[in-house]
């Protein structure tokens, strides 16, 4: 009986994870690369709670043992009943059923059941704490780790990939801790307990039941193998079909404009057919495991009934023993299936844990510990690049031996076509990435000798809308300075021309910004980032002039606000406006991620290279 309740328990709680639910054993499981090592590490996480775990193990064991004892005890009552009845039938005088004895047995049973239930509740109750506390720690560790990882880590992975490790994988671990560990103990105890109990009743009948054991293992294994093939195929087809759907829906406009609907439908039908074929086979093959297992167990049942019946007539065993034996043999195959299931679940859990540990093992941003503290009052904001080499990949150098000086108050313009890799400079200046060779200094101090926090506190930034977060306009501006007063925030908003449009919004500064906020235009978002930078009042400024998607009036405000902001600072401008470029003290020309030319406007024009080409084609409207 107990095996079935565990099954149901599982279904209700964990049909979220992959490979769970009724077809647990027949679905392919993902395996860990280093199973042993990861398992050891996972166990280490549990070590602080080992006392509780030992208690859980003990409780689970006792609960199961009591459960196993009960059919045998119940059988005694049946025997007594039967004996009394037989005596009455045989006409023995004064023959009666010994109800006192039966009542006594039933009382014992009641106690057994209650104790077993209490223990089983205890295990689950304690495990709830253990499992959740463990994954709480894991989540905490991983979150803190994420704050120490270099940007390189995030840029080379999708958000979904990282998120799934913090949520899905940890969820998987939590479910397994909650359920599978106790189940594993229960299953093993049940299995051995049942065999012992059956042996005490009748070794011959036990032998008959045991014969069914290899049969069920054989069937399960054989079918599971076959069904895995189909499940893999199904998974692949689902992937392909989803790919097609996504592609056709996102490209809907193009599909229609080019009259591609029929071909798209035909392709869909082809994939849908294939999915159907793989799908029903996977379903069918995995679906026959249960009936076959039941059949094997039923055959055992029949043998037990027949052989047991014959034994009773020969007085080898008692009638109550058959009843007990039937119950035992009924329970027999389930722990086997369940153990196989749990082995799979543990495999996928260890794979999940491995992915979590992978994150925890990533190389962190280097912290030296002997950094020079930033003395704000002495900062002038002079930036030096000295023979700087850099590349995102080891073998592709984007910047080679670059040197230049931006004196305090000067402007460096970065010029080049869209996608030319202009964010590289931001990455280097703020030490999101480390340079490969050379030095970058601020006021003569190598930026690697400063703490990252100290360095970043010198900079202000005005980039695209991705630089705002979900929250009110007020909070977004206030983000620029830790303890800004309301007055300061308002002043910054006024200077950046944010104030006048915010006042027209129904919720004013409390208007929430989010991805779909249509109440605020791109240009207005940019004004907000300018206000934030004004509030931060940095020594060095990095700003992006890109103004596509901005209406003309806002554009004028942005220009005004930007030139206000740039006054008296060292500026790095991703430049789009000719006036900015021509006025710049240094122009860095970028193409395909590389800095290819450097100098001021006159020098570069004279050189007649990429910059002069770009300049001529842009502003004269003719190919160079």
């Amino acid at each position: 009986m107990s095996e079935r309740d565990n099954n149901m328990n599982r279904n209700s709680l964990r049909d979220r994870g992959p490979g769970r639910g009724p077809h647990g054993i027949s679905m392919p499981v993902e395996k860990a690369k280093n199973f042993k090592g990861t398992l050891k590490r996972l166990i280490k996480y549990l070590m602080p709670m080992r006392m509780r775990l030992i208690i859980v193990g003990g409780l689970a064991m006792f609960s199961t043992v009591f459960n196993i004892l009960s059919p045998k005890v119940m059988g005694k009552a049946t025997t007594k009943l039967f004996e009394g009845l037989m005596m009455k039938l045989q006409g023995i005088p004064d023959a009666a059923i010994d109800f006192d004895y039966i009542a006594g047995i039933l009382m014992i049973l009641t106690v057994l059941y209650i104790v077993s239930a209490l223990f089983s509740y205890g295990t689950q109750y304690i495990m709830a704490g253990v499992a959740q506390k463990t994954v709480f720690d894991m989540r905490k560790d991983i979150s803190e780790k994420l704050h120490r990882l270099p940007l390189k880590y995030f840029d080379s992975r999708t958000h979904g990939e990282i998120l799934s490790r913090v949520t899905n994988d940890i969820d998987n671990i939590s479910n397994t801790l909650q359920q599978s560990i106790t189940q594993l103990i229960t299953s093993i105890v049940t299995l051995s307990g049942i065999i012992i109990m059956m042996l005490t009743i009748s070794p011959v009948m036990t032998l008959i039941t045991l014969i069914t054991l290899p049969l069920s293992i054989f069937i399960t294994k054989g079918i599971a193998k076959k069904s895995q093939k189909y499940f893999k195929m199904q998974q692949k087809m689902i992937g392909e079909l989803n790919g097609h759907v996504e592609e056709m829906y996102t490209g809907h406009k193009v599909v229609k404009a080019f009259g591609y609907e029929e071909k798209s439908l035909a392709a869909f039908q082809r994939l849908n057919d294939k999915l159907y074929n793989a799908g029903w086979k996977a379903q069918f093959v995995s679906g026959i495991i249960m009936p076959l297992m039941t059949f094997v167990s039923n055959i055992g049942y029949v043998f037990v009934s027949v052989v047991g019946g014959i034994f009773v007539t020969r007085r080898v065993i008692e009638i109550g023993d058959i009843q007990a034996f039937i119950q035992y043999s009924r329970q027999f195959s389930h722990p086997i299936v369940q153990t196989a299931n749990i082995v799979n679940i543990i495999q996928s859990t260890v794979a999940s844990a491995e992915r979590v540990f992978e994150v925890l093992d990533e190389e962190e941003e280097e912290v030296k510990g002997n950094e020079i503290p930033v003395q704000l009052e002495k900062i002038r904001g002079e930036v030096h690049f000295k023979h700087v080499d850099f590349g995102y990949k080891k073998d592709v150098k984007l910047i080679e031996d670059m040197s230049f000086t931006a004196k305090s108050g000067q402007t460096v313009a970065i010029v080049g076509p869209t996608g030319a890799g202009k964010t590289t400079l931001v990455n280097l200046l703020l030490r999101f990435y480390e340079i490969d060779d050379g030095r970058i200094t601020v006021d003569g101090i190598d930026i690697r000798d400063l703490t990252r926090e100290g360095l970043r506190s010198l900079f202000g930034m005005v980039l695209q809308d991705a630089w705002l977060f979900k929250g009110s306009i007020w909070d977004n501006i206030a983000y620029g300075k830790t303890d800004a007063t309301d007055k300061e925030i308002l002043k910054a908003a006024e200077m950046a021309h944010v104030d006048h449009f915010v006042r027209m919004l129904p919720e004013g500064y409390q208007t929430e910004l989010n991805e779909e906020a249509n109440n605020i235009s791109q240009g207005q978002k940019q004004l907000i980032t300018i206000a934030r930078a004004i509030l931060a009042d940095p020594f060095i400024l990095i700003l992006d002039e890109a103004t596509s998607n901005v209406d003309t009036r806002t554009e004028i405000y942005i220009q005004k606000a930007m030139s206000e902001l740039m006054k008296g600072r060292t500026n790095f401008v991703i430049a789009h406006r000719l006036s900015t470029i021509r006025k710049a003290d240094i122009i860095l020309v970028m193409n395909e991620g590389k800095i290819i030319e450097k100098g001021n406007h006159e020098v570069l024009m004279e050189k007649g290279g990429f910059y002069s080409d770009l300049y001529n084609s842009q502003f004269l409207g003719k190919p160079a």
Partner: protein
Amino acid sequence: MARIIKELKTFTIPIIAVIVLVFIQSLSELALPTMMSDIVDTGIVKGDVPYILKIGLWMILVAAIGTLSAILASFVSSKVSSGFGKQLRYGIFFRVEGFSLSEFDQIGTASLVTRTTNDITQIQNFTVTALRMLIRAPVMAIGGIIMAVSKDAKLSLLLIGVVALLSVLIFFVSRKTMPLFKSLQKKVDRINLVLRDYLTGIRVVRAFNRTKREKERFHEANLDLTGTAIKVNKIMALLMPLMMLLFNFTSILIFWFGSVRVDNGAMQVGDLMAYIQYAMQIMFSLVMMTMMFIMVPRASVSAARISEVMDMKTSISDPQLSKKVDARGFIEFKNVSFCFEGAAEPVIKNVSFSSWPGKVTAVIGSTGSGKTTLMNLIMRFYDVTEGKILVDGVDVKEINQKVLREKIGFVPQNAVLFTGTIADNIRFGNESITGDMLKKAAEVAQANEFIDHMKDGYDSEISQGGTNVSGGQKQRLSIARALAKKPEIYIFDDCFSALDFKTEAKLRNALKEYTRQDSLIIVAQRVNTVMDADQIIVLENGAVAGIGNHKALMKNCEVYREIVSSQLSEEEIA
């Protein structure tokens, strides 16, 4: 839900077959304890070994029949559920392919994708379980009750009491846990949200040294989630032992009262043994049914989302009689206004202009001024609210959509490429073009150079979403695709933005040559893209603020002058 169940009608016969098969299987399961009780009551009591053997053989036969039916049922139900999924999936995809852009706006592309994929998988999985358990559970319960009553009607009163108690228990527990499960899900979402925020804004967070704040936010969400998770799991920990206790007490009670009846001669021992097994079967079936009820709400959410798509009517349909069109390359807007469904303010207001072969029309204006919408109207992705659009002299509503769109070569703002080779992508609208034409299109689009640089040239594979080519390359391929179609009207919707100025200038020059016979509409934000056009339409807030060439507009259009002065310096304007 009902709407989706109706779709199952195609599978009526197989479903009936499954029900019959499951019924047979359940009967065989129920028959075994009965036959066992015969062994006890007749065989053992009388010591009749041949009788025991005979019944044993019958039992194997019954078990075999049961297994056979179960396997057959699994076969049929697998085919039904997969077939059902296939049918729904095709139904949805077919519908969505016919949708106009307003339906896409209404539901959202991402949501449509989920509905076609995940939601249908959900329904399909639900069907599998329903066919396996939903049918089996009641059959087992009813069968169990019939057998129990037939063995001993009076004892069954006890059973009814227990069943009632069990139902009450299930009801209260689920009422208590359901909201907890919901809030658990919410808290998981919250953790996700906090983390996603951090990931998207990571540069801001670090640049402003706000790591601590993010850590605190995560910690709070983590604590909150853990608290609820512990609570939920502790309640769930209570449920199973309680249920088991109820089951076990039932068997004790049955045994006690049963043995009294045995003593009275109202019942036999074997019957009592069988009876306990029936009771267990009935209760397990009940629990199984509740599991189904837990699944139903989830499936019905998916079902509702699917039905919504199924019931949605396409707002744009072909005319019954498509008019024949002889001319080529003419477009005329006659007092066109357009308002999105449910919107208060029209996005296009009384726009009139015309374009004919050999002419370049440019549309300029700030974001949200209605440029893209104007283009969508020409291709009839939406229907105009007022006025008329004529293509080659015929109202677009009177032309078959396919015919209309065959005339137009469209380059969207966001370049979309599809899985397949570069050649496949260029041939997308016209599979019959020759290799030379294909190369010519690529050349004009300034794509030939980088294509030739690729290892497999025109046979290079584009990965899904075109992630293996750069933004500028994507745009150029998307332009080549429109050129290869050799249409009579070209629409370039702000599609030069990812090109550097040099490439753009080259492309525009080549384009002039290639499209000499055709009508060209270019939407742009950059002044230098539109400066040479024959006519420039300046849009502001959906209305025409001016039409004319650069010179004329500089003279008499304030809005245009503003745009120009914000982009070019004084000397360039002159």
